[in-house]
Structure formats: structure tokens, C-alpha cells
């Protein structure tokens, strides 16, 4: 397999460009989309790569209306907190009108939103709201952690017949990684095993996957073999993938940057409690961001995110502080 070293930001756009080549119904629009992606404009023209007014509601609604009538739009809503302006269109229209109409319409569309610590932009540009959409029926949610997945999940999202929320972790966007050339498609709903281990399952997504891998390195010195599971898709959630790991290790530590209350980790913990309780050797632990808006100040922003030393410390507590 030939790979290139590119940033997740570029990988995501490469995936989009390949799908635009493959399917003339795919188009993209958003605030500054044509300005930023002038190479896409050169290749596909202004009709398929459009700038829009700074109005997230009508961008999302237009995508939903277009998706239901034959197009496959990919819209860029910039930063995740801006999704609050588009909730009506995403939740009430794209998510519900298929069901409400008795299956008369489909909404094959992708909405991109950036989120998480990394740019010191503060709480109105950085807010991990992915669980809001996981709770909404009719919508799929992905949040990749590797450059390869940014491309592969974007391609799957564009080919999906359902609306897909594509959360792009700001902290990952500009760190290059290996991305396969060509038609690299990563299925939605499948977790990835990032490291095999036998004593504890670290279950995460987004930028905290790498934090878990770093924590696993630290834990090795303590004789703890940690497995790292990258959810990649938050809805559908790979229940089988999570359970097979936890049934093997008997211990689960769930790690994410978003606040803990009703976050994705709460759902994962509930699944484990419901379906693997008898095999657990220790209580399930969650390590998450606090119930607070992220601060702009760099040390506070970084402290919001579960860091490797905090993860390693919590894991050791799972083993009673000793191994």
C-alpha cells in the first residue's frame, strides 16, 4: 500500500475531492469554503464549491433540502459551538424527516465541525458537543483520530445515505500522518484496535486516543498491559468491538475530552455494565473534561484534556494503586 504523509486537514479534503470526482452529485459549501479550497474550485468549478453567507442555519437547511432531492452535500460549519445555530435544521429536519414522512426521504449529507483544544480559541470556538448529536435520532456521528481515518471516514460519510456529523479534532488537524493513496474507505460504526493489551481496555476517540497510547507506554513500566480502542464512530457505536476487548481484559477506562455528564463515555460505561458486568474485575472508570467551558489560556486549555499522566494514574488506581 502506497501512503503519503499529510495532515488530517488535507486528508479530509483529499477524501472529499476523490468523492467529488467519483460522483457528480457531491458538492461542498460553507463559510469560506471556496476561498480556502481554491484548488477544488479550479477542478470542480464554482457551482460545486461555494462560499455562503455566515449563516449556519441556512447552510445546514440547504444541505438537508438538497440531500432530500438528489444532491450529496458536504457542508463546513467551521467550529462546533456554531452548530447551535444549525440545530433545528440538523436535528429536526435532517435527523427526523425520514421517519416522520414514513421513509419518503433520505438525507445523504455530511456536516463538518471543528472542536477541541489546540488553538487556544476559548469556549465559543472549542466545545466538544458530539454527544448532543449522538442523542439525536437519524444522525450518524464520526470523530476520527488518525490522518488515514480523516480521509477514510470522510469517504464513507459522503457515501452514506444518512446525515453524518463529522467532528474534526482541532488538536489533530495539522499533525501529519500516514494516509493510504487511492480509494481508502473506513467503515462507519467500526472501532479500531490501536494497541493490543491484556490487562485493561482504554477506550477513547479523537485526540485522547494518542494520550491513551502514551499512557499505555507509561503503564508498561508498571507491568500493566493496556489495550487501546479507538471508537472512531460514536454513532453507530461499535458495541461488539468494545465488549470483546473488555471481556478479554476485564477492566475498562473510558477517556474523552468532552465533559463527562451524559457524554459518550457514560453510554460506553452503561453498555459495559449491562453486558459485561459479570466479567469485570474492577469498576468502570471515566476520565473526561470537566463540567466547564474550555478556557482560551493555554495551560487551562491543556488541563481540560485528559493527559497521559492523569490517565496512567487513574489506570493504576483501577489496579488498587499497585499491580
Amino acid at each position, binding site marked *: 500500500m502506497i501512503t503519503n504523509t499529510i495532515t488530517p486537514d488535507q486528508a479530509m479534503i483529499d477524501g472529499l475531492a476523490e468523492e467529488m470526482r467519483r460522483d457528480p452529485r457531491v458538492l461542498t459549501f460553507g463559510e469560506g469554503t471556496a476561498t480556502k479550497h481554491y484548488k477544488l474550485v479550479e477542478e470542480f468549478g464554482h457551482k460545486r464549491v461555494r462560499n455562503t453567507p455566515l449563516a449556519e442555519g*441556512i447552510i445546514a437547511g440547504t444541505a438537508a*433540502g438538497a440531500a432530500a*432531492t438528489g444532491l450529496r452535500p458536504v457542508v463546513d460549519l467551521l467550529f462546533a459551538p456554531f452548530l447551535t445555530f444549525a440545530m433545528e*435544521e440538523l436535528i429536526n429536519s435532517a435527523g427526523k*424527516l425520514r421517519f*416522520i414522512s*414514513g421513509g419518503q426521504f*433520505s438525507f*445523504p449529507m455530511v456536516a463538518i465541525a471543528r472542536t477541541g483544544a489546540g488553538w487556544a480559541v476559548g469556549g465559543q470556538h472549542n466545545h466538544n458537543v458530539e454527544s448532543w448529536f449522538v442523542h439525536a*435520532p437519524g444522525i450518524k456521528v464520526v470523530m476520527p483520530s488518525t490522518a488515514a481515518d480523516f480521509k477514510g471516514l470522510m469517504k464513507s460519510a459522503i457515501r452514506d445515505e444518512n446525515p453524518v456529523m463529522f467532528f474534526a479534532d482541532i488538536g489533530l488537524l495539522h499533525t501529519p500522518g500516514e494516509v493510504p493513496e487511492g480509494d481508502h474507505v473506513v467503515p462507519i460504526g467500526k472501532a479500531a484496535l490501536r494497541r493490543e493489551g491484556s490487562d485493561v481496555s482504554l477506550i477513547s476517540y479523537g485526540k485522547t486516543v494518542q494520550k491513551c497510547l502514551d499512557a499505555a507506554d507509561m503503564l508498561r513500566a508498571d507491568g500493566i498491559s493496556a489495550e487501546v480502542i479507538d471508537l472512531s464512530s460514536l454513532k453507530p457505536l461499535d458495541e461488539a468491538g468494545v465488549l470483546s476487548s473488555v471481556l478479554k481484559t476485564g477492566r475498562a477506562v473510558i477517556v474523552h475530552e468532552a465533559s463527562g455528564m451524559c457524554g459518550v463515555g457514560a453510554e460506553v460505561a452503561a453498555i459495559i455494565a449491562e453486558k459485561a458486568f459479570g466479567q469485570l474485575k474492577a469498576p468502570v472508570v471515566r476520565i473526561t473534561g470537566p463540567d466547564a467551558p474550555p478556557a482560551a489560556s493555554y495551560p487551562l486549555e491543556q488541563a481540560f484534556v485528559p493527559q497521559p499522566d492523569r490517565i496512567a494514574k487513574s489506570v493504576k488506581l483501577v489496579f488498587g494503586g499497585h499491580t
Partner: protein
Amino acid sequence: MLGEGRNTVTTVETVIDRSVTQKLETMLLIRTFEEKSAELKAAGHSPSMCTSVGQEASAAGVISALGEHDLILTNHRSAGHLLARGADPNRVMAEIHGKATGYCGGKSGSLHISVKEIGVILTSTIVGGELSLVTGVGLSLQMLEMQGIATVFFGDGAATEGIFHESLNLAAVWDLPILYVCENNQWQAYVHRKETMRIDHVSEWGARYGIETRTVDGNDVEAVAAAARDAVAYIRTTGKPFLLETFTYRLRGHMEPDDQAYVDKEELSRWRSKDPITTLERKLLTDGVLTATELAAMKESVRKKVEAAAEFAIASPYPTVDQLTTDVYA
């Protein structure tokens, strides 16, 4: 009241032809259907619903100007648009009753009925929801070079939502083939528009976005039809959007049952005297277009159709519980 705004109300010479009797029949069907729905709600047969009693000329007039490829987006007050477009009254009534034989299998109820096979699509009950979707429909028509235009029905209440302004602005900037039809029925749920807007005519706002607009007497079906024909011709020729405001009045309450205690009695009685159906009946009888016998026969035929729809809805089965989670994902 029609002339109060800065926009002048267009007066279109009423042309009497054969099709006016068809429009009358459509209006009678809408009125009889909605009054029957309200009666069935009062009798405990169905959940609550919103009627468009008093606004029938807007639905019948605008939809008479559309072609078979044109698409319609509507809202919670939709029975008129559905029936004028040719929806089966049995299946609309069944949907209102939440029955499996309804157009959406009972999953919509009265509030968001779509009938794709007749081009009534993406109905939203979120006030303004249809305005956010219609730009996407317009974009598909433009990009896929499909025949037809998109027509969206909304009220003066939706025009006070931010998304109305976003929708018009984008449609203007992207030259989308959309007929915006604001049915200014003076009421925004339980609040009169005079409490929420400093202007009388929503068309004034449309003009500010660089869109051609017109306000028409929404209780005169032939005037509405003529204005809609002009608007549709403009959209087909230029590919640009047009905002047509049908100035009318909601004669019943927001949601059944409603005692309308909050409605100015004098205003209500003034608009009742301009009832679009009785006005048209009187005119057609006076002009000799219809005889009293023909009118009575028309009413009887409509009454039978609506009674049959009510019987069909009541006799139809509810959806089975396994439908709870179907059609959520593709």
C-alpha cells in the same frame, strides 16, 4: 387594511372561466375537509390540528398556477395545499388520525404531512423549517437541471424567524428558482401580527433582499391565481426567486379546539364578510357561471367525499408497534 403598508396591493382583473368553478370546488373541499377534521377532534376521534379556514383562496389560487414538475414545501397548516395539489382526502384524513393508511403511515399526524408522489415534500412544522429546506430544493433543481420550480408556503409568523431572512438572502445570492408564498393570515399562533411586526406586508422585507415581490388580495382566488401565474412565469424565465404575499385571514383559532376569545370581534366579523368561498359563490351565481342547482350538487359531492374520508380514517388500523423504529436510518 389591505392598503395600509407602503406596498400597494395588486388588483388583478378577475377573469371568469371554466377553471374558476374548479377552484371553487377545491376551496369547498378544503373548507369541508377542515371543518370535518375539527368536528372529529371535538368528538374525540382524532388529535388536535390546525386549520386554514379563510385561507382557501391562497392554496387553490397558487397551486392552480403550478405545473406537474413543480415541488411544494409546506407547514403545519397544510391540508389546503395537499388537497389543492390532488392528495387523496382519505389518506390525508387517515394521517391526521395517526392511522397506518395515512400518507406517512401515521408517523406524521397532521403537523408534517409530505406526499412525495404529488410533489409535496419536506413539510416541516417547525415555524420557518420549510424556509430553511427550500433553498436546498432550489439548489437541486438548479444543479441537476431538473424541470420545475420550488414553491414554499409559510405565514407571517415564520417571516419573523431569522431563517426567513437567511433563506431569502441565499435564494437571491444564488439565483434559486423559488416561489416564496407568504400567507399573511394576520395570526402568529395566539398573537396578532400587529404585536410583532412594524410593517403590514412581508413583501416589503423580501424587496430588501433584492427579490421581486408582490402582495395580492389573498381572499380573491382569481387574483391569487393570476399573480401566481405571473410569478411562476418570471421564475421560469429568469431562474430567480419571487415572493408572493397572499393577504388573508385565519378565521378559526390556532389549533382545534379554540374559542378565539383573544380575537378582536369586529376584525373577525369584517374578515368573515370577506370569506373567500361565499364571496366567490355569490359572484359566480350573479354572473351566471353557476346555477344554484349546480352549486348545491357541487357541495353535495364534496360533502360525500369528506364523509367518505372520515369513515376511511376512523375505520383504518393504527400502525403496529414494530413501526416505532422503522424509517429512522436509511
